[in-house]
């Protein structure tokens, strides 16, 4: 390798390490909302990608409005957009739960088909509202470019941001699930719905809140992904398969499992990509996931239950 010094090589290794972590946080962020909905409720939300897209479009709208009416706030609008994405995606989630999902809790495979129909409808609504072409939110300067600790190391700022957001969000979700009253109710409902109902938990309300929370988190993820990806009617569909694999590979009912599986998949893919072409890396990663799932159908982490 001509023209590459040892220190430069070291820098690239370091950046590659960071890349693995960055891919990990992206995977985790896209899977988190899904993991909550799927893990806690057993509902397969095929429209998860479209909830990501809601977040992305919300960011675009915020960016557009800020640019038009409050140009001075351009540097901070993004934070509001994230909150807005959570609220907006959550509200749509509330509506969808009320109209659709609550009728299908007993039929997980049917909820899959219905949410597939939902995703078609949502895509068309995006297209009719925002046009078929992609749009791009103007990002604040502090989210663009790279941070250079040395001459040869470039750490992507958007990667850092997504990573930070993922950590904060994961901790919040963890605290919520394991420390709050509602979280306790959610876990109780997951483990024994009948019993939870019997001790006075309004399981219908808990389900609704769970779904709204999952959708809201998807919205946040979508907002964050405007920094690294596209915003268009079908952008969400780019993420859906990866998100499902992450959740299933981790073991559906365990947040820790989702964490571990996102880490494993991200590191495998990112490392393989460094040594071979991207298509091959993807195939090998997917094949390994399937092989492991065949050996451990319940995923990496799962709650052991006496059958």
């Amino acid at each position: 390798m001509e023209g590459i010094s040892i220190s430069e090589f070291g820098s690239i290794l370091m950046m590659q390490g960071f890349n693995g972590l960055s891919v990990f946080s992206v995977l985790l962020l896209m899977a988190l909302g899904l993991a909550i909905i799927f893990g806690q409720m057993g509902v397969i939300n095929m429209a998860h990608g479209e909830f990501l897209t809601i977040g992305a479009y919300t960011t675009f709208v915020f960016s557009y409005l800020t640019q038009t009416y409050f140009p001075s706030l351009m540097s901070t609008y993004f934070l509001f957009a994230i909150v807005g994405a959570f609220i907006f995606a959550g509200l749509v989630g509330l509506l969808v739960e009320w109209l659709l999902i609550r009728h299908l809790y007993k039929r997980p495979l049917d909820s899959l088909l219905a949410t597939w129909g939902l995703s078609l409808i949502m895509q068309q609504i995006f297209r009719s509202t925002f046009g078929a072409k992609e749009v791009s939110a103007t990002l604040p300067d502090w989210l663009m470019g790279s941070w250079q600790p040395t001459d040869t190391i470039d750490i992507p700022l958007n990667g850092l941001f997504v990573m930070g957001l993922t950590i904060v969000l994961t901790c919040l979700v963890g605290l919520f699930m394991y420390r709050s009253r509602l979280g306790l109710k959610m876990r109780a409902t997951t483990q024994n719905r009948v019993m939870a109902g019997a001790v006075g938990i309004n399981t219908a309300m808990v389900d609704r809140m769970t779904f709204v929370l999952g959708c809201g988190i998807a919205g946040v993820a979508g907002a964050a992904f405007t920094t690294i990806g596209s915003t268009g009617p079908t952008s969400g569909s780019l993420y859906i398969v990866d998100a499902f694999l992450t959740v299933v590979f981790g073991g559906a009912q365990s947040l820790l499992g989702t964490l571990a599986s996102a880490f494993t998949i991200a590191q495998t893919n990112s490392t393989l990509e460094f040594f071979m072409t991207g298509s091959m890396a993807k195939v090998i990663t997917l094949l390994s996931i399937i092989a492991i799932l065949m050996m451990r159908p319940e995923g990496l982490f799962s709650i052991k239950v006496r059958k």
Partner: protein
Amino acid sequence: MIGEIQRFTRAKGKSLAVGALALLAAAQALASNPPTSQVNTTGLRVTDTEVYVGQLHSATGTMAISETGSIQAEQLAIEQINASGGVLGRQIKIIQEDGASDWPTFAEKAKKLLVNDRVAAVFGCWTSASRKAVLPIFEKENGLLYYPTFYEGLEQSKNVIYTGQEATQQIIAGLDWIAKEKGAKTFYLVGSDYIWPRTSNKIARKHIENVLKGTVVGEEYYPLGHTQFGSLINKIKLKKPDVIYSIVVGGSNVAWWKQLKAAGITADKQTILTISVTEDEVLGIGGENVEGFYSAMKYFQSLDNENNKKFVAAFKAKYGPNAVIGDVTQAAYLGPWLWKAAVEKAGSFDVDKVVAASPGIELTTAPEGYVKIHPNHHLWSKTRIGVWQRNGQAKVIFESDLIEPDPFPKGYQ
């Protein structure tokens, strides 16, 4: 500077000619409205006042992002033609079908347009895959397709007029320019994993190695829809190429450019030449993410000539002031005009006669300047290099001579 002046005068001269021609055509159309039995001997859907054409693009699915511009441009062209008297005195009616980003659907709809609707011509397709899917149907049913996208070449059909550039037109002039201007010797080829990027990179590699005497230090393909390019960017950094030659498309495109920028790869440190970014793509990528990088295209919205000014104004009047026009959109706009010219030259809507009349048809009113149909059904056209600005427009900094289309280039296969 001199080039610019020359271009200006030429454009001006041409626009005069254009005006005269248009007047002539209108007069002709009004004067003569030949009987249908004479202009339609093969049972196409032509009446004394109307002629039906098909439009076959993806209005839904992932490709709608790209194909919407073509749909709009073709409709604009047809509207303008109708306003100026139509074709052979007949108004053009459009039957629009949705290919839904799905190749089998394209085949189904193409067949419907040709067999059921008996349309006189079809303006449509975007991806090579959709064209390959409909090609046998057009050949079997003897239809006529105007295909707008720049593509990999290696194809020539009696039933297709290719209004975009074939690969050599787009690639070779761009590489020559970058080698000369930037003294580039080492290239890193990157593409989405399908036939157009692979074939284009193959041509690029041959040209780099055999003609430019440079080296290709890497060639990488990522699945369509891939969104994580961190590893690739690190690999590129490892090789330090003079030029990154990029043919990443579709959903991946935005991720690729945003992540390049985030990894500190900016125009002041790295030269990137791409043949897959037009104004349409920049809309999604954001001008700030491609600022300073180069695209090789035959058309940019910012082209400074009278034809283009009129075209851009008309397009914005119809589709809003924020509408943008990319290379393919312009090429799609050419389709109806080229068809009209060929039909009028042939004096008939019959596909065989229109096809026979097509070679040699010139369009001096083309927004890109001037095009002419080659006997191989591709267009003579120029290749331009544009450097992207923050506002999402490109500044044209180089313009080649008219390039002869060569879909089966010797020495590049």
